[in-house]
Structures are given as structure tokens and as C-alpha cells.
């Protein structure tokens, strides 16, 4: 009788241990499946921001040294068109002037 109870207890314990181990395994799998993608996206963002700032401040860094392709006529024309558009927008930008403060000066008289 006592040995039957002991066997039953052992069986229940084994089942519980197995269930616990399965739970841990699933959690571990989930962890490995999500964290690398998060890391990847972070590293992508990091590399993007690095390249953007690198391009902004250091002339020698970035694409100019990494890959040397060729510039097609259509690409050159497209870049030139974009530059012209930007130039135009800048030349027509309404800039602040000293007259912005005239009304304050008038109030002092």
C-alpha cells in the first residue's frame, strides 16, 4: 500500500517536473525568437543613424568609400532636377526681417 502511494507520488512529481520543463522550454524558445529580431531592428536603426550622421559631418565616411558604382545619365539628371527644385524653394523662402519688430518700436513713441 505504502509503495503504491510512493509510486503515485513519484509519478505526479515527474508529471509536474515535465510540465514545468516544457513551460520553461517554450518561454526560452519565445525569447530567442523575439529578441534577435528586436536586436536586428535596433542595429538597423543604429546603423542608419550612424550613416546619416557620418554623412553629415565626415566627408570621407560612408558610401563614398564603401562602394564605387557608376552614375547613369538619368540618375544624374534626376539629382540635378531635385537640386534645382531645392534651390528654387530656398530662393523663394520668406525670410524674417528687421521690420518684424517695427510695431514694437512704434509702441515706444
Amino acid at each position, binding site marked *: 500500500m505504502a509503495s503504491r502511494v510512493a509510486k503515485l507520488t513519484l509519478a505526479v512529481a515527474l508529471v509536474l517536473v515535465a510540465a514545468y520543463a516544457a513551460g520553461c522550454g517554450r518561454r526560452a524558445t519565445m525569447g530567442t525568437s523575439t529578441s534577435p529580431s528586436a536586436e536586428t531592428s535596433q542595429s538597423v536603426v543604429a546603423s542608419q543613424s550612424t550613416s546619416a550622421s557620418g554623412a553629415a559631418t565626415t566627408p570621407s565616411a560612408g558610401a563614398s568609400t564603401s562602394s564605387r558604382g557608376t552614375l547613369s545619365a538619368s540618375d544624374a539628371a534626376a539629382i540635378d532636377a531635385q537640386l534645382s527644385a531645392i534651390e528654387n524653394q530656398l530662393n523663394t523662402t*520668406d525670410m524674417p526681417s528687421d521690420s518684424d519688430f517695427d510695431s514694437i518700436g512704434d509702441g515706444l513713441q
Partner: protein
Amino acid sequence: MISRKNILATGVAAAIVATVAIPSAALALPGVRLGVARSAASTGTVVQALRQRVATALENRVVLALQRRKARFDAAAGRIDQRITKVSGLADKVAATGGDVSAARASLAQARSYLSQAQSTESQAVAAFKAVPSATNKRQAFISARETGHQAGQQLRQARSSLLAAIKQLRTAVAQARASSSSGGQ
């Protein structure tokens, strides 16, 4: 005998004495003095109220002028900032094809620096204008604030000039990259 001449002279003298003495005596009376003081106090209150009104009007003028200025300044600064980013992206593209964009990038860095300076100076100008209504010498405070605002505008113009220079330099880089691509392909 009292002559008619003497009577007339006495009458004139009495009139003169009355003209001078009565108002002086009236002023010497405490009640009359209080009335004068009261009227002086009310004049002071009116003057103070007028001063307050003028100060409030000036404060309102400053607020309105700064609102308009902020809209104008921020729009121009925002546009320059966006175009710096765009030209920088185009410089990356040209660099990827082997073009030398170092000059353009230096001008872009200069444009960013001027833009940052302009924004900082503009903040100082805003603070200086806000202080004008409470300044002892308002005229001088205004002149000084306007000078700071002028500097901010100048720095913003320099940012735009540097960006335009970067565009020119990038065009040259594109032309050179195109020329070398063509000669390499033949």
C-alpha cells in the same frame, strides 16, 4: 477832513489787500489744504493708471510681434533644415557612385552650424524683447533686442547661403561623377 481822494485811495488799498489775503488765508485753512492734496492724489492715480495702460499696450504689441516673427522664423528655419537633410541624402547618392562630395558636405555642415546659431540667437532676441516693457530705458532695451533679432536673421541667411553653396558644389560633383562614369564605360 477826509477828502474824497483819501477815501478812494483807502478803498483801492482795501481791495488789493482782500485780493491777496483771502486766497492765502483759504490755503492756510486745513480743510482747503486737504482738498488740494486730494486732487493731487487723484491726479497721481490717473497718471499711474495711464502708465499701466501704456505698459499693457506695449506688452500686447510685443506678444503679437513675437508671434508673427516666430511663425516667420520657424517656417524659414524648418524649410532650410529639411532641405539640408534632402541635399545631404543626395550627396550620399553621389558619393556612392564615386563622386567627390567633400566640399558639398563641408558646406552642409556649415549650413547646419549657422542654422543652430540662428535658432539660439533668436531665442535670446525673444527674451530681450519680452524684457522691453519692464526695462527702465525701454528705447535702449528695444534697440538692443532688435540688434539681436537682426543677428538671428543674418545667421539664418548665412545658413541658406551655405546650403545654396552646397547645392552648387554637389552639381559639380555630379558632373564629375558622370564624366568619370562615361569615360570608364567607354
